[in-house]
């Protein structure tokens, strides 16, 4: 079982899966870093994005990788509107209320999907879904290799937005010192909504990367979001490099514990890491302060 023929592909596949986890986590950590709340609606929004990518392919014949260019702005707008019109006004600026409102939204979105599309699991057929590339030491699925590359491209774009644009500066200012930013004339409600929009756009891109090799049903996002919570906690809440590295680590851990413990028990490895990190070092490996 420990032979490198099995182990190396398992680790590489873990890294590829982990990259997509990292993208979901990136959205979550971005929102946490600025709004200081856990967005419990993240998983439901991922399910919604997966459905959108599914129907973009089925009804419009849009290839998922092209659909990303359409869905990312659409979900950015959805995220912006949710924060600006629902989460912000409804929670009266109280953190505990924000947690509950995002939980309420996740219940609404997930069950509206269930109501509209039933619990059926759907998949799409793409000609390249099962294509592989031979790296000499391992065969890897093409869509997952593409996914891996796209995730790092998205991370780079996000980094550039945060580093060089005005809105990026405003977001960083609000994350550091909300009151000071407000006094300096930054529209905090707008910045919050922009951040929420960016986080939701990450989810839409992740959905487009997942749909070629994955399936969609109304509760599919839950599994991802619990993993994303773990990554965010592991990498340090609010830390972008932390989310990337944490995602890769968790991908490998999942792949290996699945190999040794079996499918259902394999998930436990992730949660135990999660609880251990929360208890021992809640700031995570890369977080500055809680």
């Amino acid at each position: 079982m420990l032979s490198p023929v099995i182990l190396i592909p398992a680790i590489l596949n873990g890294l590829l899966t982990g990259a997509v986890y990292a993208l979901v986590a990136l959205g979550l950590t971005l929102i946490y870093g600025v709004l200081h709340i856990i967005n419990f609606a993240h998983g439901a929004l991922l399910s919604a994005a997966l459905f959108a990518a599914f129907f973009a392919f089925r009804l419009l014949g849009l290839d998922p990788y092209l659909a990303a260019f359409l869905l990312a702005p659409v979900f950015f707008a959805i995220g912006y509107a949710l924060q600006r019109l629902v989460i912000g006004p409804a929670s009266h600026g109280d953190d505990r209320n924000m947690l509950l409102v995002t939980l309420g939204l996740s219940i609404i979105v997930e069950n509206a999907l269930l109501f509209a599309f039933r619990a059926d699991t759907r998949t799409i057929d793409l000609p390249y879904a099962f294509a592989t590339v031979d790296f000499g030491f391992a065969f890897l699925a093409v869509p997952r290799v593409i996914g891996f590359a796209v995730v790092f491209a998205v991370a780079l774009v996000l980094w550039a937005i945060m580093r060089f644009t005005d809105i990026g500066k405003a977001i960083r200012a609000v994350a550091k010192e909300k009151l000071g930013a407000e006094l300096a004339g930054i529209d905090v409600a707008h910045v919050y909504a922009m951040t929420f929009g960016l986080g939701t756009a990450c989810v839409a891109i992740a959905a487009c990367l997942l749909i070629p090799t994955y399936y969609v049903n109304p509760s599919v996002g839950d599994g991802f979001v619990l993993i994303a919570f773990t990554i965010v906690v592991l990498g340090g809440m609010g830390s972008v490099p932390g989310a990337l590295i944490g995602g890769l680590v968790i991908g490998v851990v999942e792949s290996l514990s699945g190999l040794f413990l079996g499918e259902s028990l394999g998930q436990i490895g992730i949660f135990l890491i999660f609880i251990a990190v929360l208890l021992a070092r809640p700031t995570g490996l890369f977080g500055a302060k809680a």
Partner: protein
Amino acid sequence: MKGLAAIAAVVAVLAAVPLFVQSNIALNFLVVTLLVALAGQGWNILGGYGGQYSFGHAAFFGTGAYVTAILQVRYGVNAWAGFAAGIAGGAAVGAFIGALTFRAGLRGSYFALVTLAFAEVLRIIASVAPITGAGVGTLIKLDLHPAAMQFESRAVFYWVILALVAVSLVIAHLIERSRFGAWLIAVRENEDAAKALGVNATRVKLGAMTVSAAITAAAGCFYAQYFLFVDSGIAYGTWISVEALLTPIIGGVGTVFGPLIGALAVKALSEGAKLVAGDAPGLSLVVYGCVLVFVIAFAPRGFVGLLAAAYRRLARAPKKREAAHG
């Protein structure tokens, strides 16, 4: 004493319901409503009075349900003893999780996440461990006998759960009036300030979590006894974590009657939604979600807060009229 009298009055009214309502469907609805109210009262002790929002009360509900079921089925323990053991088991899990998390200083989002993770770990373990019946679940044998805590008439089940709810109301009332309750509320309002005034915040939160877990576990024990079946998705599923949190928040967080009123409101609403749109999957939960968001947005103190405001307005109105005449 006024509080206790109010509890007695409410419980007496509810106890009389089966004398007038014989329909099994209606009684079943009320039993499930009271079950959720009980689980919600557990959440309310920790979340409402203590301000610690748990997203994983399924951990206690499920432990109560499994301990009750497994002790009876695998070890031949009497149902009533199993029930008591289930409550103790839930309290122990609460104390364990509380000791770990509060000692690590987890608050807010972190506390919500870690409780969620504990419930998930227990769910996964229960779905594979042989003692829980793994994926098949555990079935309690039908034995309609009061000694086995199974009753032919639904009314008796109803009175049992009502008695449990009554006890939970009294517990909440006593906590509200006690020094412990004052500490707990102080921790909720400002933990650092409470600590500075000499409140042992960790111990207060730990105590609240243990009581909270015991009450929610009691709801789990009752679930096992009433439906005679437990599996990992029911016992440790997110549905009960959500309902336990929803009922007090909708009813009135940190109030004695909040969970009961909230449970009645959400259950009636979801039945109403079923009447309007048919029994479609997901629909009642969409209603729950909307009500949750609306209550937080427009009635942060829940239905209890709305009722209190309406009562004040009514009480003031006649006086105004007198003043106008005088």
